[in-house]
């Protein structure tokens, strides 16, 4: 039963965190380069601009769901299972989602990197 709970949590984490990642990445691309904005307009302007982006809050909600699922998962499974397993699946989900929803050009170099990392994370969970 502990394992079933842990894997249930892992499934929810993957879904929620890739949704959150895509929404947050989309939001921050709309906000623009934070470092530049920080130098030109100051911290308050950066915060105001981020808070004025509605998709940012949707991303936060998805991340909050992922976070509480992580707490849930960590209370049932080992740190060395829950974190790598959910991370590995999130990598693949994110690469696909970034290509479809964010129109990022996921070239050969990035696919190799994503699969090396995801594979590495799977081996670490073994």
């Amino acid at each position: 039963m502990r394992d079933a709970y842990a894997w249930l949590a892992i499934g929810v984490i993957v879904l929620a965190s890739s949704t959150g990642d895509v929404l947050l990445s989309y939001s921050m691309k709309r906000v623009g380069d934070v470092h530049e904005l920080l130098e030109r307009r100051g911290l308050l302007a950066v915060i105001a601009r981020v808070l004025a982006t509605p998709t940012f809050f949707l991303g936060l909600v998805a991340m909050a769901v992922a976070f509480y699922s992580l707490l849930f998962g960590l209370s049932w499974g080992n740190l060395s299972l829950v974190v790598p397993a959910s991370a590995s699946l999130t990598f693949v989900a994110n690469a696909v989602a970034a290509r479809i929803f964010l129109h990022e050009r996921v070239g050969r170099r990035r696919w190799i990197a994503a699969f090396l990392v995801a594979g590495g994370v799977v081996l670490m969970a073994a």
Partner: protein
Amino acid sequence: MTLRKYLVLAGITVFSPAGDALLARGMKETGGISLHNLHSLILAVFNPWVAGGILLLLAFFASYMSALSWADLTYVLPATSLGYVLVALIARFGFHETISPTRWLGIALITAGVGFVAAGPSLTPAHQLQRPHHDPVSQEAKS
């Protein structure tokens, strides 16, 4: 990529596993949470280890947001994945979990993946086309 941007990526790499480790420590003290006692999930936030973990994860979040403002998601994620190697090392030396040869191989693969993506551009042309006014970043992606 400037030194400052590499420091932000390093921040993401370190804050996230350190936060996870503190959370794990706190949640082990709290004990197993099931669907029958969900209220203890909310109370868990007041455990000092969990609270410390949350603070670190907030620092992670700020660095992560910053990085996503000037780099692709598919760049930021692999580039900061050394964090999982850190999780394993913390699990090994902090929690005395064993690291098998397979797991060491996993660590090697992740490290190779990080090298692959870090050597490429941080922002792909899709965003340059969307934001042609944004010169400093798009010039950097070309280099």
